[in-house]
């Protein structure tokens, strides 16, 4: 139930019984051959797994070229050449890693005999993935989404409706993911008898953080096999964006015992590091309780949840999955920060070097990789100390950027230079 001191079950009494029911159902099904077979078939033939692990050669070269141009003192035999691989979750059905979790939980819901699904969504990717699975399984679907996010992510709202979901606008609080989550939980409290709550990230009360992580671990398992096939070894770095943190925990988890692999989560620095202007929870938050579990949070001294901001609706969340809080505290993972502008630059850079438009969420991981590779510490560590001149980096490209193109275009920032 806990990851160190984090996790747990901080919910109204009404939800204890359904959470117990969920835990029992999951524990009895997860290792059952029929369940695994069904899930694997769906992952392969519907989701499109395994997703590719792609060597981003031109992007990798662009990073090194920058270093050489920036630092005239680097001697002429400078030959560090980091190789950046992209784990292509953007190629999954519906365009993001979210579908791994929704197909798993969808099958679970069906086996539990539930007729209705409720979910929350921020950027809309989880809402779309949930609506997709509900359509495929013939379940009624309600998705709560903040009004602010609805205005940012019109395309995904349309997709959800097309898929037959009922999209409920949330007008309370900050009108973003946090409030959509509150409303989804309230809806669940009121409809527990026939409704399955399909939580979209590795957050929430036990057993959700474990269930979501387990369904996302497929990303890390595939990555491990693929990079070992191509390079004959594990990567040196794994980089993934962290909002709630499901794509990050999915790719990190199978590597946790591989000490040589540095695990890096990247949080949204938003406009600036001031109250209400960012969402860098693990970097600037404190421990507390939100949405049913104990984890790091952005909160004021009174324990009231702070407003947050990110250019990316999927990272715009004041909490984080409890397992990340644990990995931070035991120093197994590092968490960096990338601001809105850096993410936008990376959005453009990957698009122009590789012909891949990343989700704004994933662009945070790309931007961090750029900063990291061009940092003195990285050069010291790899070029001078380890003499590892071809460090291997895997970025989890958690989603594609189609949903963000209109928003970025409206900002008018990309074509300037």
């Amino acid at each position, binding site marked *: *139930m806990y990851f160190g001191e984090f996790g*747990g*079950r*901080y*919910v*109204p*009494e*009404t*939800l*204890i*019984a*359904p959470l117990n029911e969920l835990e029992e159902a999951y524990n009895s099904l997860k290792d059952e051959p029929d369940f695994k077979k069904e899930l694997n078939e769906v992952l392969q033939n519907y989701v499109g797994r395994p997703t590719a692990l792609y060597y981003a050669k031109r992007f990798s070269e662009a990073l090194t070229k920058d270093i050489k141009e920036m630092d005239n003192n680097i001697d002429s035999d400078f030959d560090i050449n980091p190789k950046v691989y992209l784990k292509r979750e953007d190629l999954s059905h519906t365009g993001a890693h979210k579908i791994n979790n929704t197909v798993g939980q969808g099958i679970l819901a069906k086996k539990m005999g539930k007729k209705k699904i409720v979910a929350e969504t921020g950027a809309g990717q989880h809402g779309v993935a949930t609506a997709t699975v509900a359509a495929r399984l013939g379940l009624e679907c309600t998705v709560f989404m903040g009004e602010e996010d609805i205005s940012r992510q019109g395309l995904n709202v349309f997709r959800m409706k097309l898929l037959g979901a009922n999209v409920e606008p949330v007008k*309370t*609080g900050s009108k973003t993911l*946090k409030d959509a989550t*509150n409303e989804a*939980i*309230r809806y669940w*409290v*009121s*409809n*527990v*008898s026939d409704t399955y709550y399909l939580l979209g990230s590795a957050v929430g009360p036990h057993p959700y953080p474990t269930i979501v992580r387990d369904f996302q671990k497929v990303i890390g398992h595939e990555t491990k096999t693929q990079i070992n096939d191509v390079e004959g070894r594990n990567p040196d770095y794994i980089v993934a964006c962290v909002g709630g943190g499901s794509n990050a925990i999915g790719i990190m988890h199978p590597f946790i015992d591989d000490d040589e692999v540095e695990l890096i989560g990247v949080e949204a620095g938003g406009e600036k590091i001031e109250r209400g202007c960012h969402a860098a929870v693990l970097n600037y938050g*404190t*421990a*507390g*309780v*939100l*949405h*049913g579990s*104990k984890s790091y*949070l952005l*909160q004021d*001294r*009174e*324990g*009231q*949840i702070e407003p947050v901001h990110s250019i990316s609706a999927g990272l715009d969340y004041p909490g984080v999955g409890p397992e990340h809080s644990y990995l931070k505290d035991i120093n197994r993972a590092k968490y960096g920060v990338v601001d809105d502008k850096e993410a936008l630059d990376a959005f453009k850079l990957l698009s122009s070097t590789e012909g891949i438009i990343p989700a704004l969420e994933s662009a945070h991981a790309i931007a961090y990789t750029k900063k990291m590779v061009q940092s003195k510490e990285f050069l010291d560590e790899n070029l001078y100390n380890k003499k590892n001149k071809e460090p291997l980096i895997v970025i989890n490209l958690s989603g594609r950027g189609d949903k963000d193109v209109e928003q970025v275009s409206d900002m008018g920032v990309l074509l300037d230079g």
Partner: protein
Amino acid sequence: MDKYIEYDNSVIEKYFATKNKNNEKVLIPFIMAGDPDLSTTEKLALEILDNGGDILEIGLPYSDPLADGPVIQQSAERAGNVKIAQVLELIKKIRAKTDKPLVLLAYFNPIYNYGTEKFINDFCEAGLNGLVIPDLAFEERDGLEKQAKDKLDLISFIAPTSDENRLKEVAKRAKGFIYCVSVAGVTGVREGFDYQVREAVEKIKNYTDVPLAIGFGISNPDQAKKASELADGVIVGSAIIKKIESLPKKPDNKDFTEIINFIKDLKASLV
């Protein structure tokens, strides 16, 4: 079956016992600290207690109240940036003028942030008798329960979804009163009323003598009467908050007549 032995220094339980001896049921009105402002809350609290309110439940405003419906959530929003220290002062002021039991409804995060032990000690000293934490299930309350022991009652919940084992566990650990959530849902005024919790209420009486109070959705004297037939007390929140919401906006001399008449009607309806 033997009932679990209840502890004997609870102000709340003694209050219930006195009322029950006179064949009276207990009315527990809920108001939010700071809605619309702290001085109004203080005046209103005392008026309510003078006119039929037995135990007052005061809310600590919270940004993300998971167990509450829109009426109480908006009440917390109207209360705005009320600080814990101000609520502490409010409790002291009300305590100075009444001997009736006072309970605080607070979500766990502000308590955790303040420091659980300090929170309990400070509020106990201020004169609080009970603490209702809607998002703190048994699984997470061991530490707090120890800290609260002999200082104030940590109120337990049962819901229509609580199974037999759960009811036994609640019975074993209950103090003050047991908050019986009438329906699987959030707080809020409901038109018709179906007491889904009836079965759980009947069952838990086999295991404990700690008083039972039914809440969530009770919005008029008729519903209050029906709830009081099942239990020892009735909790009314959203319906009162709706009346506070429509108080005239004048800063002083607020007219509480409508609210007070409502409290009197509710009290009179209890069987």
